[in-house]
């Protein structure tokens, strides 16, 4: 996300100091102007003090730039306690001479103005604090308290002008906080003096949900993001969510990511979703959207990929239990830290907070797969929902993360809201799960409504949620259209019966033929036997004839000899 800070031109023109506030450095393309004051304005409770302290702690800990925190409101111990919740060890930094906290107390009831004065006392203290540790950063929080303590506004104004000049001359990077004013940025018009960089923090409550937003109003000599950016303060510090200006310039991948359901892979020509694409699984209640998502997550984790599952309606343990009934064991992926659940009711935070949290988890956990189940849980003005989702899609695409979004649609597709339609155009692949009602039954069917960049099956497939996961069955077309459920089973049975009958007939014919063959072979053998017999007879006859002839001849000789006839 450091696309901004790498732009060589801006950093050469204007030196910048990183704030360590993730996101803000992106928006400002490298941080606050070095050696100049930045005005940070916002109403009470916006996080001005925490911003300031984060800036100083970051400088002290990471950049070898010690800092001075001049607090006009909180005492040093209070301040230390308040920022300890963000994990800042203020006391340690003070001991290491990396941080000085000077609490400037201005108590009007003690003060009597008796003659001409200036604010040299304040200057002396600042100078002293800065010199004592060689500070490079300073935070003045909130300078405007002076207006409440001192009467002579003319002196005050000229002294403030001098103060900012003095800070610039010393080359100290400063954050000056100020209260938001009516009709102007700050209550006392400090923006008149600090003109290099002005950042506005806001706390907006809409529908009882608070969203913190940040806007860079002005940054002299530097390009900066001009939108309102949501930000978050929690135990991880401050996170600003930059809305990527990357637009539509993502790298696209040709690689398929299996859907986790083999039969579904087969319906998509590349054998899965494209890596880095956005997939919408929509369906009415109970069609198994979560189960399809869980299949996808399970397959990813089984390949050793990191998967983030954002559960917006069910608790993670409930999901884990429920999908166990279809034979998916997600728990061992959780234990291996391949699968992480992020569960939150959408109404608990605003959209911006969700985005910001999502952004931070994506940055730290680095998943390749993200499931958001379901996006229909986001309720609000269609426009806002749409822009939120657009940014989610953008953010995930920019990182090449394959995202599956589920959406609950009304049973009747015609009742689909405009928001849903709007969302669908952001999706690359849309799998629609249907309730099919026929012959007094409700069955489930799915089809690939669209899938950009690949050919896909146009079939509506019936599927069942079995203990071995999702099973797709073949569809039968009957005279009245598609057959599902028992009608399909009946059709299957009929088909099976027909098949067996045919098999039986073939077998029967084969048996008959065999018998015929045996009979014929028998006849052949008989005929051959007869032939052999006749041949033998003939042989016998000719032998007998020969013997007879020999006998006659012999008899004749014997007779002649006995008659004494001479030859």
């Amino acid at each position, binding site marked *: 996300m450091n696309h901004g800070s790498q732009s060589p031109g801006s950093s050469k023109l204007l030196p910048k100091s990183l704030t360590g506030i993730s996101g803000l450095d992106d928006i400002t393309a490298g941080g606050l102007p070095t050696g100049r004051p930045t005005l940070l304005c916002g109403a009470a409770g916006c996080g001005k003090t925490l911003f300031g302290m984060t800036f100083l702690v970051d400088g002290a800990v990471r950049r070898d730039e010690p800092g001075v925190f001049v607090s006009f409101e909180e005492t040093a111990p209070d301040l230390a306690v308040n920022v300890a919740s963000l994990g800042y060890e203020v006391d340690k930094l003070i001991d290491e001479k990396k941080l000085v906290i*000077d609490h*400037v*107390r*201005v108590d009007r009831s*003690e*003060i*009597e*103005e*008796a*003659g*001409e*004065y*200036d*604010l*040299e*006392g*304040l200057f*002396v*203290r600042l*100078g*002293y*604090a800065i010199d004592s540790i060689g500070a490079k950063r300073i935070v003045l929080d909130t300078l405007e308290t*002076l207006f409440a*303590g*001192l009467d002579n506004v003319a002196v005050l104004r000229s002294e403030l002008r001098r103060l900012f000049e003095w800070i610039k001359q010393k080359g100290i990077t400063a954050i000056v906080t100020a209260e938001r004013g009516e009709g102007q940025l700050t209550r006392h018009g400090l923006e008149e003096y600090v003109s290099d960089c002005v950042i506005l923090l806001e706390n907006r409550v809409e529908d009882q949900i608070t969203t913190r937003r940040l806007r860079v109003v002005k940054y002299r000599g530097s390009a900066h993001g001009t939108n309102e950016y949501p930000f978050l303060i929690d135990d991880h510090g401050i996170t600003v969510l930059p809305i990527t200006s990357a637009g539509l310039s993502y790298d696209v991948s040709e690689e398929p990511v299996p859907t986790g359901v083999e039969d579904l892979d087969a319906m998509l020509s590349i054998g899965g979703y494209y890596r880095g694409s956005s997939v919408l699984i929509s369906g009415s209640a109970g069609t198994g959207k979560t189960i399809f998502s869980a299949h996808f997550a399970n397959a990813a984790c089984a390949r050793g990929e990191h998967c983030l599952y954002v559960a917006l309606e069910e608790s993670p343990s409930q999901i884990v239990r429920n999908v166990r009934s279809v034979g998916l064991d997600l728990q061992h992926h959780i234990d291996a830290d391949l699968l992480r659940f992020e569960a939150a009711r959408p109404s608990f935070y605003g959209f911006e907070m969700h985005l910001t949290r999502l952004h931070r988890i994506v940055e730290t956990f680095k998943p390749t797969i993200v499931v958001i189940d379901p996006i229909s849980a986001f309720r609000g003005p269609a426009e806002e929902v749409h822009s939120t989702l657009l940014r989610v899609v953008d953010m995930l695409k920019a990182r090449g993360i394959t995202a599956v979004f589920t959406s609950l649609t009304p049973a009747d597709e015609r009742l689909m809201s405009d928001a849903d339609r709007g969302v669908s155009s952001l999706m690359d692949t849309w799998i629609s799960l249907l309730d099919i009602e026929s012959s007094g039954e409700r069955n489930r069917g799915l089809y690939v409504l669209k899938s950009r960049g690949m050919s896909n099956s146009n079939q509506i497939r019936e599927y069942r949620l079995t203990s071995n996961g999702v099973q797709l069955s073949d569809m039968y077309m009957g005279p009245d259209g598609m057959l599902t459920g028992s009608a399909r089973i009946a059709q299957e049975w009929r088909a099976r019966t027909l098949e067996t009958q045919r098999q039986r007939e073939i077998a029967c014919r084969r048996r008959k033929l065999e018998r015929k063959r045996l009979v014929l072979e028998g006849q052949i053998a008989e005929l051959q036997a007869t032939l052999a017999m006749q041949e033998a007879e003939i042989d016998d006859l000719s032998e007998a004839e020969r013997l007879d002839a020999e006998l006659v001849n012999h008899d004749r000789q014997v007779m002649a000899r006995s008659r004494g006839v001479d030859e």
Partner: protein
Amino acid sequence: MTGNSQTPWWEEADGDHSGTHFVLRLYVTGSTPRSTRAVEIIRRVCEERLNGRYDLEVIDIYQNPQAARDAQIIAAPTLVKILPEPLRRIIGDLSNSDRVLAGLNLVPATSPPGGTQG
């Protein structure tokens, strides 16, 4: 405010704190005109109104910045009345007499007509 006399204003004031001990600190910035004026004025006030019932310390915050921090000094010059309580910070070159006296909890010597004497 204190009439038409040519005497300096501090001589017109009279204290009702005859037994009170004053602890005062004046924080100045080197020898700038305002600082010098403030030093002069407070010295006279002390001599003429407090008759030795005071400790006055003049501190140059250029020389001792830590003192400015410890005493919560913002403006210069600043006169801090530590005793008697309550603590007061009288800021400025002390040229406004009423304000100085009010800050020190002293009353002017010549009160407006009809005013009561303490």
